[in-house]
């Protein structure tokens, strides 16, 4: 593999902000030289180093791939704008942090898709690497470009740019892909793709063609290679205890977003919130045993020296042995001067007990996520938190000494009315001054984006003007001393919705926006509102069709060919229940027949 010129590199590093983003060599990063002809895998995170290095999935795959004797996995992140400019000026292509090799020379280039607004960075990184943007234009000298992560559950917006999508848990399938690559080296791209397209969780978009009806909806998906499967099944890890988990994660030189040891304690969630994609696509709940979690935590702390440990999952306190786990970890951490962070807690009594044990002296902020302002709307979205729960939690928090509370809400949820907005205002105010106490309250409001594989996947999204009007209403409702009100840029939410539920045709809009300079769209300072609007319009990509239209159940959705394990009928019934405000119980209280049980063993079924 070709390496970048060290002298030029050194000169560039002297001119950029945070040069340590580009140098690799961190403690626990791997030396990637192996005998034989190992498969080289460049793991690409389409955002800057500090974001990418906070992503546990990278560590997991990096560890699994490098553990294999026939695979070398290196990392690459999106260079920040200052570095990109210098690299382009000096004709330096995109390179990996470990061996500083050209990304183009790797066998496989794998992107993780965590967020729709990183798609322009995917294109930009391909371009910086000197790899043709379109899958069809790539030759034998180019890597196989693969992509996975939650956004890959609707792969279609990127279908023209990505050779292979991985749908589901990446742990084993990425390694399998590497082995297949090694076994078929020299037989050519097409042959390789033909071989792997039958593997569970693998989707090769180039083997399908989509035709559309006059109204713009999908007419038919046709195969262009007979051997390709009709339905792509999500690939899944059944037992977390049986898979490797990083024991020596990389310790970055510079501060990253989550600068700590992390143990994933379970995957999935039983709560069934109807807006939540993660709660659907990561079913069923698969727990890591308490013993294994504690063991991993200690080994990671020994091997990294971090002074903070985070537990990773959705709704962390739902782990079946949460109380014991948290108590024991609190003790262990206290003994070694490590702080424990539990980012996703339900604020029930157990959690408070645990939290006050952890934050004995220093009380950081508490976060509540009621998501909607009234009980009616919380029933619609199946967020089973009552006003009483919130008041109780606030009282307990007050008694235990917390003074800062953050509240998360969404606006633009199906069936929302002005009363629901007023409810947000009421809740915020109530917490600030109730019974003479004083909290400082932050109300964070995000714009609801309907996501594939959720019961709300058929719903129209709010328009920009709706979001703006609602922001205005909330701003005036929350003009209260002690309340801080934050909200998100409306047009970014529209774009997020467009790429979340888009089909193959939105890819042209993406490419045009990138060509005209859009990148780092998730960062408000680099988001180019006008450029995006014009690019979409010039590419004839109409948000009206993709975002604001009410879809019927009979319509073929772009992602319908993927089987997530959740029955479509279940999503429909959940959507119908939402319309009448009827709730669905937590799966732990009895099976709701979502379908996952016929896909794999759901251990929530006692």
């Amino acid at each position, binding site marked *: 593999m070709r390496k970048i010129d060290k002298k030029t590199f050194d*000169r*560039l*590093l*002297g*001119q950029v902000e945070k*040069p*340590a983003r580009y*140098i*690799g*060599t*961190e*403690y626990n990063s791997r030396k990637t030289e192996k005998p034989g002809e190992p498969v080289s895998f460049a793991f690409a995170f389409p955002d800057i180093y500090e974001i990418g290095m906070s992503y546990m999935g990278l560590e997991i795959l990096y560890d699994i791939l490098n553990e294999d004797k026939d695979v070398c996995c290196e990392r690459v992140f999106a260079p920040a704008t200052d570095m990109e400019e210098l690299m382009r000026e000096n004709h330096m292509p995109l390179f990996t942090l470990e061996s500083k090799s050209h990304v183009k020379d790797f066998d496989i280039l794998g992107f993780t898709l965590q967020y729709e607004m990183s798609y322009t960075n995917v294109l930009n990184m391909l371009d910086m690497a000197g790899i043709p943007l379109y899958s069809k234009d790539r030759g034998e000298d180019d890597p196989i470009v693969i992509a996975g992560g939650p956004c890959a559950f609707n792969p279609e917006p990127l279908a023209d740019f990505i050779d292979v999508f991985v749908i589901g848990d990446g742990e084993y399938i990425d390694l399998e892909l590497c082995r297949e690559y090694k076994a078929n080296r020299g037989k050519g791209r097409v042959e390789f793709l033909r071989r792997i397209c039958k593997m569970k969780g693998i989707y090769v978009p180039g083997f399908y063609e989509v035709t559309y009806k006059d109204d713009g909806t999908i007419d038919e998906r046709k195969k262009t290679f007979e051997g390709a499967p009709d339905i792509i099944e999500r690939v899944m890890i059944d037992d977390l205890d049986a898979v490797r988990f990083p024991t020596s994660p990389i*310790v970055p*030189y*510079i*501060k990253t977003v989550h600068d700590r040891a992390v143990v994933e304690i379970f995957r999935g969630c039983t709560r069934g919130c109807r807006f939540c994609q993660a709660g659907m696509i990561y079913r069923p709940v698969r727990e890591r045993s308490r013993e294994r979690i504690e063991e991993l935590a200690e080994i990671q*702390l*020994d*091997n*990294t*020296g*971090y*002074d903070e440990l985070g537990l990773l999952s959705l709704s962390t306190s739902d782990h079946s042995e949460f109380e014991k786990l948290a108590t024991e970890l609190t003790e262990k951490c206290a003994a*070694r*001067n490590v702080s424990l962070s539990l980012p996703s807690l339900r604020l029930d009594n157990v959690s408070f007990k645990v939290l006050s044990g952890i934050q004995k002296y220093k009380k950081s902020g508490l976060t509540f996520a009621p998501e909607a302002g009234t009980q009616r709307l919380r029933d619609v979205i199946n967020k089973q938190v009552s006003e009483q729960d919130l008041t109780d939690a606030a009282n307990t928090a007050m008694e235990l000494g917390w003074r800062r509370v953050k509240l998360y809400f969404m606006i633009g949820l199906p069936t929302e009315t002005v009363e629901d907005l007023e409810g947000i205002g009421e809740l915020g105010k109530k917490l600030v001054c109730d019974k003479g106490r004083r909290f400082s309250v932050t109300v964070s409001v995000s714009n609801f984006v309907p996501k594939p594989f959720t019961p709300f996947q058929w719903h129209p999204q709010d328009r920009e003007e709706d979001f703006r009007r609602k922001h205005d209403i909330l701003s005036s409702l929350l003009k209260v001393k002690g309340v801080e009100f934050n909200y998100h840029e409306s047009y970014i939410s529209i774009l997020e919705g467009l790429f979340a539920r888009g089909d193959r045709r939105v890819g042209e809009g993406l490419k045009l926006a990138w060509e005209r300079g859009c990148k780092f769209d998730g960062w408000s300072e680099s988001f180019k509102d006008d450029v995006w609007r014009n690019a979409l319009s010039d590419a004839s990509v109409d948000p009206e069709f993709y975002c604001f239209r009410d879809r019927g159940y009979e319509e073929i959705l772009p992602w319908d060919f993927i089987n997530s394990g959740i029955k479509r009928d279940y999503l429909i019934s959940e959507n119908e229940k939402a319309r009448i405000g009827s709730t669905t119980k937590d799966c732990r209280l009895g099976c709701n027949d979502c379908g996952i049980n016929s896909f794999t063993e759901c251990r929530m079924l006692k």
Partner: protein
Amino acid sequence: MGKYILTFKKQGYIKYTSHLDMMRLFNRMFSRAGISLAYTQGFNPHGKMSLCQPLSLGYTSLCEMLEFEIRDDDVPGDEKCRELFEKISAVMPEGLTAVDVKEAENSRSLASLCYKAAYDIVIPDEDGNIRRHIEETGGKEAFLSQDRIEVMKKKKKSRDSVSVDIKKGIKKLEIEYDDRKILLSTELDAGSSENLSPELLLRAFFDFLHIPLHRETLEIQRSALFV
């Protein structure tokens, strides 16, 4: 309880790690090594350790010194120093090399004892242009024999620049010519009372030569700290 001084080299890409990041790095390093630092008292306790003299981002060094205090009952001495040296060496990140560990003899902090630092600076000079300018202007003798050596320096808080005289901060300056590069070795005031950064010296020197300084092409290595 014992107070020790670790001397180490900083070479390679790790030179792009800032002073603050180095402090975090050492905290983690001690933790990996299983060495328990003594903690400061107070509201926000942290491990007792400090670097003798901050090293600018991008500089390498042969002689960095970290002073640290540990929490154990072992008798300080050669054997203890050897043990610490081995534990530390085993967990240092790439680019850092432990040179030795010694007991700290002075109760005053290293930072307060430090008074001078030596640097080796490599300036690329592909076409010999810089060398020509040095020779034409009378070289270092002419530069050093000025009554005042003035250079603009940015104030820390406001963005204003003020002119400062750095003459008495320059303790030594040698210039050698090598194949297509110029080697400058210098000794400058360093420490908490008087401090002169090599960058200011270079700016003053290049101002004197009337040629632009391309900071990103320089290699600067600290070769000694005097305490």
